[in-house]
């Protein structure tokens, strides 16, 4: 539901990168969303064309990566896989765990296209 505003934040970051890098467009975007980020990959994908329309990031290929949910146990030290609503230790069952991965909401990588002629001639 809030994926459109998240997507708009993403597009603003992409816009900044285009300006900073003096690129002309973004061709690919890699976003890492954990199952515990609160953002649905499917909804983010649907929101992307709307949020990016008319910007240099429009038409970019959007790649969504998910890391597994992993927790580290403070009682027994084990690192185990977990699920969104069961974040307890997979070995001893203690709930005193720390999340190692699974809540990411990150812009991981951007592929951009420069105007080579402009770059070669030193024009920015």
């Amino acid at each position, binding site marked *: *539901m*809030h994926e*459109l*505003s*998240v997507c*708009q*934040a993403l597009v*603003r*970051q992409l*816009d900044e*990168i*285009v*300006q900073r*890098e003096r690129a*002309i*467009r973004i061709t*690919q975007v890699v*976003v890492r969303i*954990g199952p*515990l*980020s*609160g*953002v649905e990959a499917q*909804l983010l994908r*649907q*929101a992307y064309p*709307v949020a990016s*329309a*008319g*910007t*240099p990031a429009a038409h970019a290929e959007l790649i969504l990566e998910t*890391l597994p949910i*992993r927790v580290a146990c403070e009682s027994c030290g084990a690192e185990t896989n977990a699920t969104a*609503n*069961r*974040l*307890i230790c997979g070995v001893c069952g203690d*709930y*005193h*765990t*720390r*999340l*190692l*991965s*699974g*809540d*990411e*909401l*990150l*812009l*991981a*990588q*951007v*592929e*951009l*296209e*420069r*105007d*080579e002629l402009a*770059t070669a001639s030193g024009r920015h």
Partner: protein
Amino acid sequence: MCDTCGCNITPGNAHLLRNDGPLARSADGREAITLLKGLLSENDRQAAHNREHFDRQGVLALNLMSSPGSGKTALLEATIEALAGKLRIAVIEGDLETENDAERIRAKGVPAVQIATGTACHLDAHMVHDALHRLDLDNIDILFIENVGNLVCPASFDLGHHRNITLLSVTEGDDKPAKYPVMFRAADVMLISKADLLAVLDDFDPAAAERHLRNLASRAPVLTVAARKQRDIDAWLEWLRTEVAAQRERVARRETLHPAVQSEGQALHANSGTGQPHRFVRLP
């Protein structure tokens, strides 16, 4: 996509929208840049700024979240009455405007600012910043921010507050924490609200609700509150007093506090500093 939530452009972020990117021209040179930057870093920056405001003025800022109708406003009304003359309270009201929640708060003699969320499904740090400048925070001990009634969207947006309070009313299922792990994992305290109805509702088990919360690796205290009927908010008031004292100590030590939501994963997989992004040219 949720087309009723309309959380696209909020009054608070509208000024940030820019759609005037450079004209695209064809070229070949493609380059990949790895960044690992938080998608909501812009909101997080604003939230940090809000938190500075609160800390500078010695205010404890609390974010109330729940489903619609779980009793957020009723709890605020009861809290204001109970703390009258003891702690100074202000409220930023983000719950749906039509409910007239800000009016309900003002009727108790406390300053309240209503955020015009329109049909937005969550508050963000920019909206809260606009609202906090319409309040005189100098003479305030606790600022309550009543978020939009929604168990999904509000959990993703840091507002600059210090603590998350999540209400679960006994008229909802006791398995809500299992169904909305992102929201309940973010709770610094879970309040089982409308506890006066436990006597007549036999399908809500507070112990089961707490078990579901612990399964989220949450160490948050679980308190029961009744804001109407046989009012009982003593445990909650005690929690508030402790938090106000803790905030005063932090302010004296020039420290601050983020809500407990464990973001180790986010931190581990993001560049902490603003160092140069690592870059490489993509192979064809």
